[in-house]
């Protein structure tokens, strides 16, 4: 019987495995490129809010705002991390976030930051900072499934070819065991590849965070905390007090817990990847060696 498409089963399996690896790499590259928007303006300094959002999303903005309020003697921290308003501080809010945070602490004194966080998750301040960072190419604001699907196109193409070969092989009575396994692997990989591309700093955003000349260089607590979280509060006693208040914070992009303590800082939950489940190396070990071993041909 003639081999379909002029390829023996083992030859097809080898080619399919190679194609699978290439498709995975291509999908990874495409997902990464989706996060790397062109830069709109280089070397524009980052504000403390922008640094905070870039480094850890809106929770980090709350942290750096809290640091600023503590430094300005508007909010007082107890050694165990509980927060209290300072009376007669002459506080005039400079942002909605400041206003809301101080109101929360005044309304419910003696609670740690994480107690207040849930009510501070949707503020116009975040949208403004995020949009500006996105416009400047420093932040990827999260992809839809459509964008993820686009990145996974090489895997789709590979799957279509594999399915066609499999149907043809079945119709012609060839063994298709190895191909079936590779197809299952491909489909599983596609499922992972369809996960939305996570929000987070672009490559330029990461470089901006690493470049001290892009941030406001000062001894202010707000700047230190914006970059590194509350653990970086310049006053070691207060920094330790924040560490005392254990928090289980959720990153805003995917709802996964990203920190078990303020000390750990609040950050993005890690960049996107094609899929942790798409270990293409092992998946291609089927090989297809041996005649009639089931590559949809003899």
């Amino acid at each position: 019987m003639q081999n379909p498409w002029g390829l023996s089963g083992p030859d097809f399996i080898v080619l399919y495995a190679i194609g699978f690896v290439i498709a995975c790499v291509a999908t990874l590259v495409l997902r990464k490129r989706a996060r790397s928007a062109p830069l709109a303006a280089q070397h524009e300094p980052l504000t403390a809010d922008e640094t905070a959002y870039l480094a850890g999303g809106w929770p980090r903005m709350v942290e750096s705002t809290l640091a600023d309020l503590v430094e300005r003697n508007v909010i007082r921290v107890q050694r165990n991390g509980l927060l209290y308003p300072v009376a007669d501080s002459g506080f005039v809010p400079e942002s909605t976030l400041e206003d809301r945070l101080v109101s929360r602490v005044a309304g419910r004194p003696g609670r740690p930051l994480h107690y207040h966080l849930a009510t501070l998750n949707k503020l116009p301040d975040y949208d403004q900072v995020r949009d500006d960072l996105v416009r400047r190419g420093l932040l990827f604001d999260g992809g839809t499934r459509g964008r993820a699907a686009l990145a996974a196109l090489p895997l789709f193409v590979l799957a279509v070819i594999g399915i066609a070969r499999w149907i043809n092989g079945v119709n012609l009575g060839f063994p298709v065991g190895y191909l079936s396994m590779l197809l299952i692997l491909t489909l599983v990989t596609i499922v992972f590849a369809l996960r939305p591309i996570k929000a987070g700093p672009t490559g330029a955003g990461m470089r901006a965070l690493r470049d001290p000349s892009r941030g406001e260089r000062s001894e202010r607590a707000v700047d230190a905390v914006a970059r590194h979280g509350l653990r970086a509060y310049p006053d070691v006693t207060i920094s330790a007090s924040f560490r005392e208040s254990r928090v289980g914070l959720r990153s805003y992009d995917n709802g996964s817990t990203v920190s078990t303590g303020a000390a750990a800082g609040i950050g993005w939950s890690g960049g996107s990847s094609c899929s942790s489940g798409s270990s293409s190396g092992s998946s291609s070990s089927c090989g297809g060696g041996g005649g009639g071993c089931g590559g949809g041909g003899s």
Partner: protein
Amino acid sequence: MLESRELGVGIGWRPEIDITVERLPGVDFVEVVAENLNPDHLPESVVLLRERGLPVLPHAVSLSVGGAEPVDRKRVEHLARLADVLDAPLASDHVCFVRAGGLDSGHLMPVPRTREALDVLVANVRTVQEILNVPFALENIAALLEWPDAELTEAQFLGELTERTGCLLLVDVANMYANARNLNHDPLKLLDDLPLERVAYVHVAGGEEHDGVYHDTHTHPVLPEVLDLLAELVKRTKPPGVLLERDGDYPTDTDLAAELRAIRERI
């Protein structure tokens, strides 16, 4: 006068302002609310203050030595244990009762100034002194009412109390001011007649008037009139220590430091 127990200027240590108290300039000693501390698990801040050598004085609010019932020995033992752990030079409570018939008032209630009430108070204070390993001081309270048929003035009442028990006085000038405002007491006369040689230290606190009644809130700035009263006391005797009491609406560190400075200027 208790010259050997020179304390200086202090502030009430409260958990909410622990770091502030640790860092305030011009704090020579602190006072803690005894009922809020566990002698076996002292707050880190209190331990730190002790390590720096600052006297930490336990101040109780629940012994109810002015009550008709015998004092609760467990409460006194708690105070004694705390005083020991803190290596405190003295411990204190108020001339008042806070419970009767199994009910807690939630407030410091004035004791009738009768001989019979004084006898009960003396007996209770002696019980406390037997359990404590440090001198015991009692504070005059701010009252919104007075029991009728008083047989003794406040100065006589406190004078006899100190004489019969050997206890010390914790003079609260803010409470004196409140009583002057609300009960038309004469605070200067009281200062003249009190056994000031028994003063352990002095309390100063802020308050505010509501609907014609002055409330010793401990949440407002100290009034100049209260500081003037402190100055009047200082004219008569040099108190071993003066302590600022603040129990809420804590202002900025700068404002608290300014209040301590104002106190220091009066002494």
